[in-house]
């Protein structure tokens, strides 16, 4: 007779735990040194709290009733609880506010290595700091944390959630149903489907080509130089952030115009952490300038979350791939 544990969860035994703990301790030191104080919030929140965030994906998957019949959810990220925390515990505090966290979140994902239904996130939130300065600060802390964790070959993809919707505006693609389908193809990474949708719009060949090329545009600063016209505004924002970065951070950045918001609340800059030793993103972040307003304290904000289990896999894979 063997007692099982729920699908998508797992036990951590001492050898792994020691490595995880050592890694998160190094990351925590970077966060604290940069002025981000650690907070912890309840794993259970009222469903209404997460409903305010209007998330497209990554919504809470697990619900329970409390003794009064209220619906509670297991949090699906830490950004929404911290937005609530800022609006309630710091409703008069002078911004900017800086917080970090090391906490588990819960999602109904398809379980596989690096994708658990209960997963530890390490992240920061910078509340009340505008772009580009706030975004540059968060990217700097992100790279310092990855350096401290011991990753050597990581890259950070930098995009802008407003870029593609703005491009559709400029090309006068207004039909809501068409826009929805186009953005869905982008989120799914289906460029064949995107081509079908764009062909159906009846745009000029140049405009149609732009809609297809932009999401596949990624690389060094040179990819921004060839862009102007309808993309100028979003690209100006990315250039401004990049210009504020120290060389050791700037060299890690890949401009990635194909990054689209996978979580509903991102508004401007968005970023993802990649490592060539591991085939899935290690972390995600971005600006969420509208979210705090949903909780009654309108402030611009930016942050990121690293998936600690994936960070550990990437670190191990890098070590195995390195010549002795």
């Amino acid at each position: 007779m063997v007692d099982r544990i729920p699908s998508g969860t797992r036990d951590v035994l001492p050898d792994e735990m020691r490595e995880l703990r050592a890694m998160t301790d190094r990351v925590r030191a970077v966060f604290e040194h940069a002025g981000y104080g650690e907070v912890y919030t309840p794993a259970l929140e009222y469903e209404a709290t997460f409903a305010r965030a209007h998330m497209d994906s990554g919504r809470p998957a697990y619900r329970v009733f409390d003794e009064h019949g209220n619906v509670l959810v297991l949090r699906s990220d830490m950004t929404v609880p911290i937005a609530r925390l800022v609006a309630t515990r710091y409703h008069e505090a002078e911004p900017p506010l800086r917080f970090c966290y090391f906490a588990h979140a819960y999602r109904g994902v398809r379980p596989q290595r690096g994708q658990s239904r209960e997963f530890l996130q390490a992240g920061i939130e910078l509340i009340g700091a505008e772009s580009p300065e706030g975004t540059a600060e968060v990217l700097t802390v992100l790279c310092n944390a990855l350096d401290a964790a011991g990753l050597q070959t990581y890259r950070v993809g930098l995009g802008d959630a407003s870029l593609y919707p703005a491009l559709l505006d400029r090309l006068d693609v207004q039909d809501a149903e068409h826009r929805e389908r186009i953005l869905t193809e982008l989120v799914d990474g289906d460029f064949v489907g995107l081509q079908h949708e764009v062909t159906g719009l009846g745009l000029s060949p140049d405009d149609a080509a732009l809609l297809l090329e932009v999401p596949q545009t990624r690389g060094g600063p040179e990819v921004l130089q060839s862009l102007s016209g309808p993309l100028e505004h979003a690209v100006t924002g990315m250039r401004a952030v990049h210009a504020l970065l120290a060389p050791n951070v700037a060299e890690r950045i890949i401009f990635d115009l194909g990054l689209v918001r996978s979580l509903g609340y991102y508004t401007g800059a968005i970023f993802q952490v990649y490592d060539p030793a591991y085939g899935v993103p290690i972390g995600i972040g971005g600006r969420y300038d509208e979210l705090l307003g949903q909780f009654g304290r309108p402030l611009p904000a930016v942050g990121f979350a690293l998936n600690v289990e994936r960070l550990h896999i990437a670190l191990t894979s890098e070590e195995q791939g390195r010549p002795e």
Partner: protein
Amino acid sequence: MNELRIAVPRGALFRETLDLLDRLGVNTAEVRSNDRKLLFEHAGIITMRPSDVPTYVEAGAADLGITGKDVLLEQSERELYELVDLGYGHCTMVLATVDGEDPAAEALRRLGVMRIATKYPRVATRHFLETGRQAEIVEVRGSVELAPLTGLAEGIVDLTASGATLRENGLVVREELARSTARLIANPVSHKLKAKAIDTLLERLDAV
């Protein structure tokens, strides 16, 4: 070229995929001459069954892969980029039943549910959900055509290219669910970090 590892499907798409890779400048001679070997390090090619291609590409064990749209439809939850419709390997996903009066329609009318045998349970489930019909999906692994002939199911959802196998077993197409061709897919992280190599390959693909 060796910078990229490509997952190549054995089976119906195998020959045309190797022909395409030849035109792109990948030397496939060793792959063609060796039926048992699976990993060709020098050419950057790994071979596998088509339905395993998304698994390898999603995990980053291959940077790129080639497989049918039918496979991608069945595994739609995978985190992959679908880059190009390669235009070969045409086939159609159909609902077929035995010739004559449609036994699936009759089962639906009189019993409320039709039993459908398929190797594509998710595609089939989605189709009947979207068209508002109750269906019991029976998953089988091979020779789906046997199911309606033996009473296991009233109909099948399967892939057909010429329709010859269906005809030989006395089955007729009742509905088309989707068209399928070979697709080039990419691991999202490889797509970002090996952008130059992948874009070079895509340019050559445009040229051939």
